[in-house]
């Protein structure tokens, strides 16, 4: 008979003594939790729609009311999928950065990609003249699209810069410091723009920095999905090298890891994931740094063959949960997403890390 604890071993057919002590069965629990949160995210919202109506709509039928069909297909489904994709992308890129830089404080944004995105948005929202104001003032939709384009362009330019630097500089720490300094430089420029901007423009910029999963339309969703899946596949291809990197860059090289190729793979995957998420959802803090720690604590392993699927599942769960709580189901208030991720997530990570520290000493 197949017991629940055997399921991951069936998934990892090669499971051996190297996984002794790891709780790989929790991957199944995470997958079940993800299904539950997906259903909740589709079922809960300011309008109350019966569950069977939602399921019927998702299966291609029509709900009793056309408005319900509309809400589910045009609003809740894109929001749910966006949250999952963003959570996966941020969790995995955080894992890549923490392992590559061998630093538990590293996060997806250390490469400066999201700083580049925020500069793009700030230039459009705060710096643009009358044309920008007209766009943002009247047309909400065109304004959103413009923000996405500006963030995407800023992220893509920064990504090219980071890749050029990463190809030349064989040193992780140097790359880390350059990324951090670039971030400071950009935030100074943004502050400068904020200082001279009109109050309502500042409000628009700040709204973007709050982050949101509901800004992505069903037309834009395939673009986000494609980039995120490409980034995740690229990350999966680095799994073996990431395990060797746990020792050190010197040891990894001595094991035959092609460091230049691996470094570019890690940086490109992170840049793709982060720039896509930041362009479509804004700079969503916390998930990227917290989810890898949560996974290490939960799964009890540093092995990336467990951590990568773990961060994918847990990232999606955390993002969905944060999105749900931000909407405060039953009310008409929507909290800023970044407030929820940090307020609720930080204590959880503190607990996990403290438990881990006690277990080790």
């Amino acid at each position, binding site marked *: 008979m197949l017991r629940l604890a055997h399921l991951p071993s069936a998934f990892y057919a*090669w499971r*051996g*003594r*190297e*996984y*002794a*002590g*790891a709780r790989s069965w929790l991957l199944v629990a995470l997958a079940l939790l993800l299904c539950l949160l997906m259903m909740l995210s589709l079922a809960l919202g300011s309008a109350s729609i019966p569950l069977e109506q939602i399921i019927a709509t998702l299966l291609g039928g029509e709900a009793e009311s056309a408005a319900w069909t509309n809400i589910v297909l045009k609003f809740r489904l894109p929001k749910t999928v966006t949250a999952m994709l963003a959570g996966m992308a941020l969790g995995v890129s955080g894992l890549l950065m923490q392992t590559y830089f061998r630093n538990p404080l590293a996060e997806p944004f250390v490469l400066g990609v999201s700083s580049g995105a925020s500069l793009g948005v700030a230039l459009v929202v705060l710096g643009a003249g009358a044309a920008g104001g007209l766009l943002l003032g009247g047309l909400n939709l065109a304004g959103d699209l413009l923000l996405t384009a500006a963030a995407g362009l800023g992220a893509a330019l920064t990504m090219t810069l980071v890749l050029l630097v990463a190809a030349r500089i064989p040193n992780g720490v140097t790359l880390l410091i350059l990324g951090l300094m670039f971030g400071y430089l950009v935030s100074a420029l943004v502050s400068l723009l904020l200082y001279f901007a009109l109050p309502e423009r500042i409000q628009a910029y700040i709204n973007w920095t709050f982050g949101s999963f509901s800004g992505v339309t069903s037309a834009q969703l395939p673009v986000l999905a494609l980039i995120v899946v490409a980034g995740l596949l690229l990350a999966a*291809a680095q*799994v*073996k090298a990431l*395990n*060797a990197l*746990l*020792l*050190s860059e*010197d*040891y990894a*090289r*001595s*094991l*035959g*890891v*092609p*460091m230049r190729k691996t470094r570019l793979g890690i940086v490109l995957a992170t840049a793709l994931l982060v720039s896509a998420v930041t362009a479509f959802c804004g700079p969503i803090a916390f998930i990227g740094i917290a989810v890898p720690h949560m996974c*290490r604590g939960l799964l*009890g*392993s*540093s*092995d990336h*063959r467990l951590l990568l699927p773990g961060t994918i599942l847990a990232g999606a769960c955390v993002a969905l949960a944060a999105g749900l709580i931000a909407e405060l189901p039953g009310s008409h208030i929507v909290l800023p997403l970044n407030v929820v991720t940090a307020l609720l997530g930080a204590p959880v990570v503190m607990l996990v890390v403290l438990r881990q520290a006690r277990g*080790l000493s």
Partner: protein
Amino acid sequence: MKALETRALTIGYRRRRGDIVLARDLNLALQRGSLVGILGANGVGKSTLLRTLACMQAPLAGHVLLAGEEAAHLLPLEVARRLCIVLTAAPQVSLLNGYALVALGRYPHSDWLGRLSKSDHAQVAWALQAVGATDLAEQRVARLSDGQRQKLMIARALTQDCPLMLLDEPTAFLDYPRRLETLRLLRRLTRQADRAILVCTHELDLALRYCDELWLMSKSGVTVGSPATILRDGSLHATFGIDGSSFGVNGGSRFFDDAQLSQPLECQEDNLV
């Protein structure tokens, strides 16, 4: 068979304003089944030599041959199948067990996910047994002592299954019994597993006792010889000699005879008055 050979090797660092040369025209060779120690004062270039031999840094001139093949022409994976390394500090990998840490050595032999085959598992089990760390297999690495972790790192190097093993001061953080144990283990591995082992060390005493051959590095170059020869012809004294001390030649454990230790302290106070 020669696991390692150098031809007219010059080591050092490339700088824009002229290269810094630490040693030139080195013609060294290392046979399988022998334990060789690199000895020398701080800053003389032991680590640079080791890093150059391990293909972690390029030579300024000359050639490094690994199992008869020019190292500069080999791919990273091909180098990884010919030599493995153990560095001074054992890495802190908190959430792996001992078995997983040792199994990382199978990297150059496994598939894209690093899955272990039956023979990989056999290699890991053998390496754990060879270093006497079978009982550490299912313990978290973070809970182990420095000595236990370094033992696992040597086992990890063994599972890489290379003819040549290079160690850079592997005993620096260990206590004396652990240092003795490590050197004895390395000597046993050269005999039982037919490896060529090159160890860079400051353990004069232990190196003289356990190594088959010593490479003495000084500013003037590298002197090669068996421990007995090196003791007799005075090259050890020339490399490490401090005024007022000399090395014993009787092959006993006390090589170091410091005349100054027996001098009364008063004579120094006289100078102060």
